């Protein structure tokens, strides 16, 4: 210990435990994490073990449950794809162009993080319902955006937008203009420069943003239930299935479906971590 202190002035030694508080902070972190997150989550697994395999399988593959997976994962996938396209566009515009009110637009990107989901849900519904600002012009043409799966997708697009913009934006900011200049000097068109030079450098960030928006969308509840209409087999999302089973005191059934969602979140979390590691490696070029 004391040796480390003496050599601390030396150039670039690996930091050692000179600072006090390691046991205290790590102990508190692990204790708090266990009490709030790990032990409660393990309750979910223990509850599942009270079910036989047949009971579990029946609970997680009922026709209504299967329909809800299709809707939840399908709508989340479409919403995340839309967010990749428009998120890239918004990030591009914010980084590359100057325009009036840019700082306000930049701040507004985070609105879905800050606005409570229930508020987003009722206000999107008010806009898109048959008598709403937007809905009244679409309904006569037979386009219905609320109270059906379309509404689910729209709510999930709202929820997921900041994830893509905020992962792509810093990568675009750090991108080296010299590479683009070199491409242009070598005779590439602007479109070729984008697809061959810029796009490969932001692809990991785009994928990360996609995975984060998708993961968030799969678990989302508040904004969706107001606009979905919640018809069984048609527009009922998986989190709502869990609530429905809880309201019928089917705790085991609710837990089984929750475990399926939890396992899926774990897998997505691991994928996102791997993507971020890949992105760091890509971005490892000298600044």
């Amino acid at each position, binding site marked *: 210990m004391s040796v480390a*202190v003496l050599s601390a002035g030396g150039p670039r030694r690996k930091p050692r435990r000179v600072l006090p508080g390691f046991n205290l902070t790590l102990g508190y972190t692990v204790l708090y*994490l266990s009490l709030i997150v790990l032990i409660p989550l393990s309750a979910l697994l223990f509850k599942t073990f009270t079910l036989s395999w047949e009971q579990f399988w029946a609970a997680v593959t009922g026709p209504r449950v299967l329909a809800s997976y299709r809707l939840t994962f399908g709508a989340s996938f479409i919403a995340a794809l839309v967010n990749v396209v428009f998120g890239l566009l*918004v990030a591009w515009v914010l980084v590359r162009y100057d325009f009036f009110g840019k700082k306000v637009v930049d701040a507004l990107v985070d*609105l879905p993080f800050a606005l409570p989901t229930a508020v987003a849900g009722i206000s999107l519904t*008010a806009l898109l319902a048959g008598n709403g600002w937007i809905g009244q012009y679409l309904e006569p043409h037979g386009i219905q955006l609320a109270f059906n799966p379309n509404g689910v997708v729209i709510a999930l697009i709202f929820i997921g937008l900041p994830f893509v913009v905020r992962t792509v934006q810093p990568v675009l900011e750090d991108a080296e203009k010299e590479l683009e200049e070199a491409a242009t000097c070598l005779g590439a068109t602007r479109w070729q420069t984008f697809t061959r030079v810029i796009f490969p450098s932001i692809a990991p960030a785009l994928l990360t943003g996609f995975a984060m928006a998708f993961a968030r969308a799969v678990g989302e509840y508040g904004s969706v239930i107001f606009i979905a209409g919640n018809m069984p087999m048609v527009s009922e999302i998986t989190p709502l299935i869990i609530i429905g089973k809880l309201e019928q005191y089917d705790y085991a059934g609710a837990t089984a479906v929750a475990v399926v969602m939890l396992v899926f979140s774990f897998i997505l979390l691991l994928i996102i971590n791997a993507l971020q590691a890949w992105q760091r490696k890509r971005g490892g070029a000298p600044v």
Partner: protein
Amino acid sequence: MSGAVSSLGKPVRRAQAGTTEPAWVRWALLTVALGFMFLFLVLPLAAVFTEALRKGFDAYFEAFKEPDAWSAIRLTLITAAIAVPLNLVFGIAAAWAIAKYEFKGKAFLTTLVDLPFSVSPVVAGLIYVLIFGAQGWLGPWLQAHDIKIVFAVPGIVLATVFVTFPFIARELIPLMQAQGTEEEQAAIVLGATGWQTFWRVTLPNIKWGLIYGVILCNARAMGEFGAVSVVSGHIRGQTNTMPLHVEILYNEYQSVAAFAVASLLALLALVTLVIKSVVEWQHERELRAAADTPPENPNN
């Protein structure tokens, strides 16, 4: 500020010919991007306030004369006042342990801290029902001692703590990792105690990240819907937070009242965004000032 921005813009403009698009493409992209933002972000926000004021200011304020609305506001404030400080202390402790030391399993611990973000809010509520509910692990014991956790305020606080768990820690960890430990080591070598080092050296260095994390944590704590909805039991005047109160009013077709309460939450979101932006600009300014000062500045 504007001087700095325009001077930064100059070298870019010189090189623009090769690294930007034709003007019509720029305009098209800008129009589509801003149009998308208008449709998906500005319109919903505007709809909250216009719907709330559709029948005039009297009807708007009528919504807040209800005692249930006030108890919902009070419960939301209490919940945030407990959840945010708890996660603040945890965030600082976790960031100190993870950023300042090397130990086995650090990457795993960091992943676990992020875990609540990837758990559906509904599942977050469910786990507390499974533990503290009538049929849960501790249910019989709690009932025998007449303690209510689920379908009461403690359950709401617990669920809120869970969903806002990583906010402050994940802001602070990368920040403190980037800052390293040299300054703290210097303070310790010069004879400061651990607490002095934390208050006088670490805290001033991380204050913007800290405010940023607290602001976002608070916004989510006050606005959480799914997790709280599972554990609340929806007892009017007792276990309804503001978002739950909005839901009840909305389902009872009291549209103006629902949007009136929602408008308070939307205002909270706007205030959050403003503070967040100010913190970001302030942080950038300090970074730029730090970059301008020569490294051998005797003040440090």
